[in-house]
């Protein structure tokens, strides 16, 4: 899932400084699951904004809403009901939601309420770790399912580097050296010779090196995509 994190409140306050009525808009997708932009976080953000503004002596009216998703135009429809009522929207969705609102509703001033950080897994309550970088060309079939692009600080394809010590990464000592794990895993499976092949330099185009990434499925499109 996409992991996001609440932005510092002073920055949000600065963005909406001149407004007197705003909407804090959550999303029940990924950001709700990672406790950054669901109903509860919307309520907290709204209350925090109210408190801060009343302390500044400039009370503000804050509406609260949470959509099922902000990354689908049809789920954004209800925004039409709010857009004339409020001066600005603070979206707690990931960057996709904020962009889509900006695309579809050019007259709505929308501000991000979270920083979109990475694709990660929820390992324990309150703990998320990156597992994939969306590089567009999956290679983990060759590495025992462990991704060196996302999880090696140097994106090595022929690792591990000389800084691997006690199975830990030298860049993030609290994290395992993923190449160490790959070697150990393939060794246990008797497939170590797979690592003896020299891995070709990666084609970074699918990772975004080729400009904006677009995916079109003709078998699903109706009306030429309209």
């Amino acid at each position, binding site marked *: 899932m996409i992991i996001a994190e609440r932005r510092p409140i002073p920055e949000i306050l600065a963005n909406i400084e001149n407004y007197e009525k705003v909407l804090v808009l959550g999303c029940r997708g990924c950001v709700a699951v990672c406790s950054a932009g669901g109903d509860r976080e919307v309520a907290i953000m709204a209350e925090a904004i109210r408190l801060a503004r009343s302390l500044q002596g400039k009370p503000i009216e804050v509406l609260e809403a949470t959509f099922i998703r902000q990354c689908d135009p049809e789920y954004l429809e209800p925004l039409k009901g709010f857009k004339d009522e409020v001066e600005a929207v603070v979206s707690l969705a990931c960057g996709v939601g904020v962009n889509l609102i900006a695309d579809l509703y050019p007259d709505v001033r929308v501000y991000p309420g979270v920083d979109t950080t990475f694709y990660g897994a929820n390992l324990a309550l309150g703990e998320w770790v990156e597992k994939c970088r969306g590089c567009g060309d999956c290679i983990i079939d060759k590495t025992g399912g462990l991704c060196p692009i996302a999880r090696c*600080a*140097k*994106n*090595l*394809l*022929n*690792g*591990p*580097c*000389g*800084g*691997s*010590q*006690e*199975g830990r990464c*030298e*860049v993030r000592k609290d994290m395992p*050296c993923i190449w*160490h794990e790959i*070697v*150990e895993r393939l*060794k246990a499976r008797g497939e*170590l010779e797979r*690592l*003896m092949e*020299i*891995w*070709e*330099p*990666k084609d*970074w185009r699918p990772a975004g090196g080729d400009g904006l990434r677009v995916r079109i499925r003709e078998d699903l499109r109706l009306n030429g995509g309209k």
Partner: protein
Amino acid sequence: MEGKSHLESLLEAGKFVVTAEIGPPRNADPEVIKKKAKILKGYVDAVNITDCQTAVVRVSSMASAVLIMSEGLEPVMQMTCRDRNRIGIQADLLGASTLGIKNLLCLTGDHPKFGNHPEAKPVFDLDSVQLLRLVKGLNEGRFENGEEIKGKRPYFFLGAAENPFAEPFDFRPYRLAKKVNAGARFIQTQIIYNVEKFRKFMEKCKELGLLERVYILAGITPPKSLAMAKYMKYHVPGLEVPDEVIKRLEDAKDKKEEGIQIAVDIIQQVREIPGVCGVHIMAIEWEEAVPEIVKRAGLYPRDGVPEFTPPFVVEKVVEKVVEKPVEVIVEKIVEKPVEVIVEKVIEKEVPLEGEMADEKIFTLIEILSDLKASLKNIKAGMESLEEGIARLEEEFLKKKEARPVIKEVVRKPEEKPKPEVKPEVKIEEKPEVKVEVKVEEIKPKEELKIEEKPVVEEKPIIEEKPEVKAVPEEKPEEKLEVKPEIKPEVKIEAKPEAIKIGGLKGIYRPLSERAKNIPQDLYLEKATGEIKEVVIGKGDKVIKVGGVSGLNFHFFEGEMRNGVKFALEILDVKPEDWPESLAKYYSDVFHDPALWAKKCVEEYGAEAVCLYLVGTDPNFLNLPPDHAKKITEAVAKAVDVPLIIWGSGNAEKDVEVLREVADIVGERGAVIGPIVEANHRTLAAVAMGYNLPVIASSPIDVNLAKQLNILLENMGLSLDKILMDPSIGALGYGLEYTYSVMERIRLAALFAQDTKLQVPFICSIGKEVWKTKEAGLPTDDLMGEAESRGILMEALTGVTLALAGGDLLIMRHPKAVELCKELFKGLSLS
């Protein structure tokens, strides 16, 4: 193959080769590189040039390689994947080849996190194995994309690095094989101290049939100091330093000498291992050691000299250039090519036709010649300065000779086994004062040998007259006046006043006079940054530290608004390991930190007091936060000078303790710490809550210190609330390393506008000095008088660190503080 490198030819001929390493400077001075090259010339077959090692910006490897060639040395250019993608890499490699560089070491590179631009985007488009393969392709005439190189191909003798000690250990030989398959022809290994482990690695390489396919050069580094060896052991990942090496250094009197010998021994051991074709000596910032190592290892003289045509050499600059107005030079340059400013262009000329002859080359040459000329001037100036310094030293020395110190010393009977039985040593100050011989009661019948011994002090600290006094061999009890340590509750009647500090008696000549023959702009280098001022305490006893706008005591360049400040250190519990020569000053108040603090202020004039909560250390007494709270409260009530509250150093426990303590000293504006990376979040919040300054403590490293400051600043703590504790080492225990790190931090802060380092230093000196063995050894012939030795060690450490930039010194011995102050007064005359 056309144009094999010297290194390649030697290896192919089966010679045992020696390579070394040069780290280019962090400025645009070509002389630094050339100077290092000159040291190595004749002693090594080729020299590696690092490519921004540890991700710190430096002169590029390629430019340095060219400079090295101009000195007649063959370079091994290093290329990492950190900073360039495959386009940049190939472009640079073509360029390097056109400049005549033939050896190339392919590395993945250190992550930017470890460098001075951790914010940079790491590239890592390729890794080292892919880079090797790419260069092999270039050698064979094709680019990475498979396209053919039309025209002249580059040629590189390809090398790679491997760390035989990194984990997973048994995979390392396979990874080496991968590098060989990718095109590596020689390997330079990580630093080897653990020869046995390296031998195993080599055996595995042999099994894999690698030894016939690749030349392996063993990595050697002479440890420059004990601190460096320990640093490598504990802080450098993938580097194994056996305890034996540490022990050798610990036992050695001359650490540098021992470091060189260790390197020589390792060379001799690895030479015996089949498959080792040479050594790669990495004397980090210690190039001078290389010739000595090579000689002692029996590897001197080297075979042959490299043959190559340097791309261009600029020599013999016409000195008049500098004196001429700039416009004229430019005109001339435009009119005529190189010859105008360069008298002789050695060997082949730069092909200047076509686009090469553009202004950039001229500018470069112009800069080079300007630099050379001004360097000569600087050299003349330096000589003048040195002369002045020598004169000053002479004055000191004279004084030293004029004031011999003869002391009366009671020797500890040799047969006494128990260390706690310490005969008290009293040094005579004035003839009128009676000698006090204090011996513990425990063994009163021991025979005491009394000796008289003249001791010549290094520094003029002890003012006394030679006096000989015999101590009768009767029962010492009858003479007992003071019993320190055993019964601390007994009030000491006679104050220990054995040591008196004399003043500096030299005649001061102002700098303007000493340097009158040198143009001011040659030695004057004003700082562009300024150290922040941190305010400690509240009210009229407040002290300010920092606010420095030049190097410490460089009064001709900048200000030291607040001078160097001192704090006396007290403990929350009765100290267990303080030597008697220190303890006697405080033993009457050991039982009560409040009284202790009071004594520091009232008797010894402390302008600040540092309370070290050592008792809360979980590895010591593990006293609860309540204890700390109680003690702090009492101390805070007892004295009104600013306080420094120093936790046990255990990251977790300090959070609990300092949180409690902050509540008490919150209104006093006391300093709390040490904050380390592990607890910076909570403690920064605590400090901000009470608006207190903090001690940011990091393990002796420029970047770690900076990183912690950044972390704290990110938490919202402003920089003028931070005192940096660089983790210091005492005299003989890494002082020189501390000095160098502190100096580098201070230079970065003042001259490189590194704002995150513009923070004053706090140095906890007493702790480090008084725990050393030497500070605690009793008086004897070899080590001299115990108390003056301790005082000198503490004062020397203090003075040295103050010179390196120390702003607030925490010390223990009142006399050591006095001595430092005296010296600083002398230094402050200008």
